[in-house]
């Protein structure tokens, strides 16, 4: 889709990813902004989901005709926010024809398995536990940069349930990078979803 790929590719020549960060906490906004700047990204920070939609032009205020979509390569959003949660924002982004290809990373201070699952199922690239570290951000941005190179593999729900193949290696990278000391509680591989499906079908 021409529109989506325009949005997905970084600015020609600048080589920098443009990241939109969404968080209601002032402290966290400042931290994530610094983390992203150190990781050589251009950063736009907003304080709520509705502001984020406004920025992306998805708030229904502007007509899609003649509106130049802002170019964003990655969206990082907090989960628990007043008004619109990160999950709701994620859904709206994935529903948008223009921005659905933009990777979305959800951040949360709470390690709740159902929350992580629902975000990943809704299409989140990754789920990061707060407080977010520089290594987390670098890993995510590196992954996105590499993804720019192997664009063409369009990730869809059906991929998650297919038997492991070479194309699903990028998915397993995403899943395996859910970072938390209690990683044991979350098996980090596509087979986790597979086994869930098999268990349910028995």
């Amino acid at each position, binding site marked *: 889709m021409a529109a989506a790929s325009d949005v997905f590719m970084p600015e020609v020549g600048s080589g920098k990813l443009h990241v939109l960060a969404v968080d209601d906490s002032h*402290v966290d906004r400042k*931290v994530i902004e610094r983390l992203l700047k150190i990781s050589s990204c251009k950063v736009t920070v907003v304080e709520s989901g509705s502001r984020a939609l406004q920025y992306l032009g998805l708030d229904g205020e502007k007509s899609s005709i003649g509106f130049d979509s802002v170019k964003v390569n990655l969206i990082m959003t907090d989960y628990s926010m007043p008004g619109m949660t990160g999950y709701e924002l994620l859904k709206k982004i994935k529903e948008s024809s223009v921005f659905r290809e933009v990777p979305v990373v959800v951040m949360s201070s709470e390690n709740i398995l159902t929350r992580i699952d629902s975000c990943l199922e809704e299409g989140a690239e990754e789920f990061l536990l707060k407080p977010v570290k520089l290594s987390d951000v670098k890993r995510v941005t590196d992954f996105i940069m590499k993804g720019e190179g192997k664009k063409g593999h369009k990730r869809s729900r059906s991929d998650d349930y297919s038997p492991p193949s070479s194309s699903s290696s990028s998915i397993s990278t995403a899943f395996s990078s859910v970072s938390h000391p209690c990683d044991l509680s979350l098996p980090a591989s596509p087979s986790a979803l597979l086994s869930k499906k098999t268990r349910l079908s028995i």
Partner: protein
Amino acid sequence: MCVCVSVELRCYINPSTPCHTTPHCTISFAILTTIQTSFLFFLSHFLIMDKIHSHRQVAVIKHSLFDQGYLDEQFIQLEELQDDANPNFVEEIVTLYYRDSSRLISNLDHTLERNPLDFNKLDTIMHQFKGSSSSIGAKKVKAECTLFREYCRTRNGEGCRKSFQQMKKEYAILRKKLETYFQMARQAGPKETALRPK
């Protein structure tokens, strides 16, 4: 010291004779130079040692903050984000934290005055406070927040109140310690100037 020596030197200078031909003048000048050089040598060493001492003091304070559990790894993570262009990043973040915290504590105070208690609201506010405390590495404060939220979960009003008081205490202690730490760090100045060889 310099004054005494120059007075001594002046005693040997006879206006009628050129200074450099007087043997006494030459010797006194040599003594003066040696004394001045030694003085400057010790002075600069003293200043460097003082700087090193100040930096050591800052390190001691920092160590105790970690040893006594006031701060955790996240604080170090933030310090690593500082550089020459952003030398006060941590202090800026902590200042933001104080501002947010004052607002949230005030909010909690008001909400705890209500009867009956709105545990959901209390939990939501405390969730925010816990989040920002966690982001700066405020370990003890964060632990109290967790306890408070547990009391909210079990609808224990008395527990909430007690835990809130304790949390405010921890917050006040941490704030005081951090203020001292940043003040000393500012006085000690950037580390490089203390250790750079002249």
